[in-house]
């Protein structure tokens, strides 16, 4: 019994979780064989509302949700919560309100799957697709590293240091590559659904458990904070952490970046009905406050019980540390499984979407005479290659890449002006503008992000400066190169598709 309540129980929970994930992947492969790219990459565009909603949620939640955000809120209080909610519920949800159904319809009309296919088709040049696909793939690499770091940490904690960083990472990564390779999008979406449910329950219940056990519940937590650290419950927060201009400059590019990432774009094509895709903004505005509210409560409970933590790692892991302090290890194992669910669902979707992008945006364009079955196998092979490249990088260079991961989303946002131009069916943007904008934005992002303290200049986050330069270049170069506008036929065809 002691073994079950200790680290043995925690390991048992994790083994059950991994087994369930593997079984779901195998069922997807066995009962829904994919012989064409649409089946492997998009699940045949036939997902129901429940799976479509949960795969969105689970893909969007990641190591940041479980480890990073409670830590941010611990350090910066209500300001951290407002910034993170503003990013997801404010900006990402607005993008999905306006463009998710439109993307779904354009996909049905023209057979698009990846973002680069839309870019190449609308702007009429294959190289636009190559450049933007390469950029979007590159934005994911640092993000994958951040997830891997989170996975390895959770595994070490939940198994009582039984698994080393290398072994834990290799095991989990190999499992993900296996089920993505076998079952494609259907396996990813089904495992995401299980992981999304686990995540929603784990984070919510975990936050309440910690709050009641450690500080007497949410009201007691906030009452205590009002007496001791009221600045945590107002803005801009301790140490002027979130001045308004900086907050807005951070919220806009980062929130715009999430829908641009290939795994999120791809999932806009998977629901069976346009009504299911219209559910997305509603689902985001309902589920994110629950999860972010839980993260906020955890951060504030941490401030009541363990105030004064300053090291980033200590604040980031405040939830799991408190759980292990107040509950048997098996409870920690359950919540660790929820955290693993958040991370695995994101990484598996990313591996899958990068594999799809390599197969569709590069190989299928370079060798257009492939049979559908060949394309599926190329996508599968790309999943393996991409997966192992990610594994190799995370085992060899985690530190550098995690530094880059901070502005992964702001980098992906550099595709937004070109994407909006294509989705809106505007006549004036040109292929040169669609490449010049993201190129200039990327340079500015790296220049300010790596060269200036705290990734800001003149009090504004690097991502907003990059986006502004991007938009200026996109418009100016487009007006300067009117000869490379999209063809009138293409624009007319896009306009015949509704919103």
């Amino acid at each position, binding site marked *: 019994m002691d073994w079950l309540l200790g680290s043995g129980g925690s390991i048992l929970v994790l083994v059950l979780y991994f087994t369930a994930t593997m079984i779901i992947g195998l069922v997807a492969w066995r009962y829904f064989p994919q012989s064409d790219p649409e089946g492997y990459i998009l699940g045949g565009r036939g997902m129901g509302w429940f799976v479509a909603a949960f795969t969105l949620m689970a893909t969007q939640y990641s190591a940041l949700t479980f480890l990073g955000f409670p830590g941010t809120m611990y350090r910066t209080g*209500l300001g951290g*919560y*407002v910034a993170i*909610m*503003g990013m997801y*519920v*404010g*900006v990402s*949800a*607005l993008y999905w*309100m*306006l463009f998710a*159904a439109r993307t779904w*319809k354009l996909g*049905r*009309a023209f057979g698009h799957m990846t973002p680069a296919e839309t870019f190449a088709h609308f702007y009429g040049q294959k190289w636009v697709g190559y450049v933007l696909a390469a950029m979007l793939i590159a934005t994911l690499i640092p993000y994958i590293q951040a997830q891997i770091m989170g996975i390895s940490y959770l595994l070490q904690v939940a198994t009582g240091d039984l698994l080393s960083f290398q072994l834990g990472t290799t095991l989990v990564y190999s499992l993900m590559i296996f089920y993505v390779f076998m079952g494609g999008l259907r396996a990813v979406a089904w495992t995401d659904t299980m992981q999304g449910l686990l995540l929603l329950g784990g984070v919510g219940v975990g936050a309440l458990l910690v709050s009641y056990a450690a500080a007497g519940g*949410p*009201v007691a937590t*906030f*009452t205590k904070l*009002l007496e001791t650290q*009221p600045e945590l*419950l*107002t*803005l*801009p927060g301790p140490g002027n952490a979130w001045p*308004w201009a900086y*907050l*807005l400059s951070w*919220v806009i590019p980062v929130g715009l970046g999430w829908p641009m990432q290939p795994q999120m774009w791809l999932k806009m094509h998977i629901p069976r*009905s*346009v*009504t299911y895709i*219209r*559910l997305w*903004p*509603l689902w*985001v*505005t*309902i589920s994110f*406050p629950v999860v972010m*509210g839980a993260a*906020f409560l955890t951060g504030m409970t941490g401030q009541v019980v363990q105030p004064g933590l300053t090291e980033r790692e200590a604040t980031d892991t405040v939830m799991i540390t408190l759980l292990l302090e107040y509950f048997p290890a098996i409870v920690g194992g359950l919540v660790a499984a929820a955290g693993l669910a958040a991370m695995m669902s994101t990484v598996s979707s990313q591996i899958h979407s990068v594999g799809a992008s390599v197969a569709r945006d590069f190989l299928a364009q370079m060798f257009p005479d492939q049979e559908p079955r060949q394309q599926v196998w190329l996508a599968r092979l790309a999943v393996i290659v991409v997966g192992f490249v990610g594994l190799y990088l995370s085992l060899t260079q985690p530190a550098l890449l995690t530094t880059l991961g901070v502005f992964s989303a702001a980098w992906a946002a550099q595709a937004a002006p070109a994407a909006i131009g294509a989705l*809106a069916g505007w006549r004036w943007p040109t292929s040169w503008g669609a490449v010049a904008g993201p190129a200039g934005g990327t340079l500015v992002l790296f220049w300010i992000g790596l060269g200036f303290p705290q990734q800001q200049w003149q009090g504004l986050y690097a991502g907003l400066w990059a986006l502004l330069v991007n938009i200026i270049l996109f418009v100016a170069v487009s007006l300067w190169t009117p000869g490379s506008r999209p063809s009138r036929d293409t624009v007319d*065809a896009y*306009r*015949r*598709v*509704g*919103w």
Partner: protein
Amino acid sequence: MPRRLIRHALIHIFLCLCFLLPGGLLWNRVEPHLAGLPFSVFVETLMFPFLIALNALALLWSCWHHDQSLMKQLAQGADVMSESEKDREQ
């Protein structure tokens, strides 16, 4: 872009700007409010998320009949590329 989308997008932006409003009005009032929660926490974790979700629900509702009729047409083999004229008017 149809008017219904623009309408709900503008409401969304307005609500989100209120959610992100600078200090002094909402954020910096911390006196206990609903169920003992500080006012700033009540506003940011309960009130505005509820209003924003309500607007998203209203958008779903306003698109409902149009989307259902599109799906019916698609099921009958119609082309997704022929709906924009009607769509634009709504």
